[in-house]
């Protein structure tokens, strides 16, 4: 049966190849888009998992949102609130880490736009060991209490700007040089685009002394995180909002789910086109073989055998297309990832081609094959033998 189906597919090679190509393109899109979405999800989940803070304190002016919305509003609040947060009534705050974040344009990177920008985080020396314990140094060391004019940069930034420990960081503070003291190992995530410098250096450089863009808070009892966040908000509700990490992650996850839904919609349209494409090809193919199938029926070949033969032909076409589409999907995701790195400067996005996505690609191919094969197979298996033998 398979041999016969394969032979039938070689009757009109060009048509079969074009059909395979059409379905492969549909599957390429599906696999490619799914890989990108999964890559984004993975990257985000990994970053969220590795962060140790329980609450973010954010400016009210930014609507309690994280960057980039936060940055676009230029919202800040007083660093002095940190002491108030430490001393809230419910006594659940373990530590508070003031942060000043600003995305800085560094100048054109030699090879790509990937490293044109850096998310500069002004933090206290305890921030990295306490809240980012999973970050490891590729070279150098972290800055310490009392250090000035130092910076630790993420792997992507270092690579794109060709920076090494001991180099001067392109962002100068007037009258003082910022020296790179450490380069972080790549995490493949958002962290690779970040640079960490002493808070006061950043505030001075940006003329924002005494002001911060957010604060990270750890708590003693995680069961009371929400209550603590509410208590922080209540401190200066006109200026700041306390949001739990989970709450913020949920917002981002919802956005990513929306992106996934959009990707799936695009993929569905591509797949629908794939189904219609192969359906029309199969209808044409079986119609041309009416007399031959009539002859087979006259020889006693059962309807169900004819049905299976056509479905097998459709399935083989789609499985070949599925395999090619999966490979194409990997290629597409790599091209899109490269383009995002190159032109949008986003370094953290890595497409993920998991066995699951490959499996989904092949499963979709099988579904297309069966769906598109059903009608032609049913139609041709129902033919009237006498009429089919007369067919010219």
């Amino acid at each position, binding site marked *: 049966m398979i041999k016969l189906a394969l*032979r*039938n597919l*070689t*009757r009109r090679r060009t048509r079969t190849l074009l059909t395979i190509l059409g379905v492969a393109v549909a599957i390429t899109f599906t696999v490619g888009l799914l890989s990108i979405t999964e890559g984004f999800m993975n990257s985000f989940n990994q970053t969220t998992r590795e962060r140790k803070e329980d609450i973010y304190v954010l400016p009210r002016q930014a609507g309690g949102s994280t960057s980039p919305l936060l940055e676009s509003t230029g919202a800040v609040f007083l660093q002095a609130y940190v002491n108030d947060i430490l001393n809230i009534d419910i006594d659940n705050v373990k530590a508070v880490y003031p942060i000043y974040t600003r995305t800085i344009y560094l100048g054109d990177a030699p090879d790509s736009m990937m490293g044109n920008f850096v998310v500069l985080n002004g933090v206290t020396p305890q921030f990295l060991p306490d809240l980012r314990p999973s970050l490891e140094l590729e070279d150098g060391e972290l800055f310490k209490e009392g250090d000035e004019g130092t910076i630790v940069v993420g792997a992507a930034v270092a690579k794109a700007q060709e920076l090494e420990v001991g180099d001067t960081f392109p962002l100068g503070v007037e009258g003082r040089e910022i020296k790179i003291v450490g380069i972080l190992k790549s995490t493949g995530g958002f962290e690779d685009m970040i640079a960490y410098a002493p808070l006061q250096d950043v505030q001075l450089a940006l003329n924002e002394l005494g002001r911060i863009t957010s604060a990270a808070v750890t708590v003693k009892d995680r069961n009371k995180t929400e209550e603590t966040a509410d208590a922080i908000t209540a401190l200066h509700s006109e200026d700041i909002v306390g949001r739990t990490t989970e709450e913020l992650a949920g917002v981002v996850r919802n956005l990513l789910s929306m992106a996934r839904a959009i990707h799936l919609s695009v993929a569905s349209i591509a797949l629908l086109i794939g189904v219609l494409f192969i359906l029309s090809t199969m209808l044409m193919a079986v119609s041309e073989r009416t*007399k*031959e199938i009539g*002859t*087979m*029926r*006259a*020889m*006693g*070949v*059962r*309807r169900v*055998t004819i049905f299976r033969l056509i479905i097998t032909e459709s399935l083989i076409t789609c499985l070949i297309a599925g395999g090619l589409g999966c490979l194409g999907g990997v290629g597409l995701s790599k091209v899109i990832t490269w383009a995002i790195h190159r032109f949008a400067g986003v370094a953290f996005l890595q497409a993920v081609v998991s066995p699951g996505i490959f499996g989904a690609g092949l499963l979709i191919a099988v579904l297309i094959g069966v769906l598109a094969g059903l009608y032609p197979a049913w139609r041709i298996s129902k033919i009237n*033998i*006498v009429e089919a*033998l007369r067919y010219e």
Partner: protein
Amino acid sequence: MSDAIVEVTHLSKVYMMGGEEIRAVDNIDLVITKGDFVSVMGPSGSGKTTLLNLIGCIDHPTGGAIRFEGQDVSELKETKLDRLRMSKIGFVFQGFNLMPILTALENVMFPMEMAGVPKKEQIKRATELLEWVGLPKRLHHKPRELSAGENQRVGIARALANNPAILLADEPTGNLDSKTTKEVGLLFRRVNSEYGMSIMLITHNEAVAEVASRSLKMRDGRII
């Protein structure tokens, strides 16, 4: 015990065309016994092909009965009719109706493969049959690489593949030149004499009809 392969009684096939009743086969009685070689002649539209299709169980009568080796075929469900055609009936067509993607050998093997005959046996029998019809050097040629006469020989070998009880041939020489027509006619004669196989052959050609042991003439759906 009767040696009738096919027994047709009061067989009719009536259909409507443009509001007019057409009696394609009109109350025919016919018996084809084992080893019988019957040719059927008659003008176009006389009902020859319809009669052959009814006997071949690929069309359904509107009246009368067909008994195949004693079994009333109207009682058989579709799958049993399929099995009957596969094992007991060999069709030979005017246009050969070979599968273009298969070689001569594979075309002859095909009915055996569908009948579940082991592969080795398929190859052995198909080779023997093709040699028997005179194509020992054409086993691996596809239909487009063969002449019309050679294609019809492959068609006859294919019809013999499952060793049927009867061969039904619908104008098998209609697409052949006179020399090849004579050769193919003689081949049917050999099938009948060497295999002892019953044959019902429709033809317009008197010379072909003459190779049969019995000749029938049809007009307006009746045997005259």
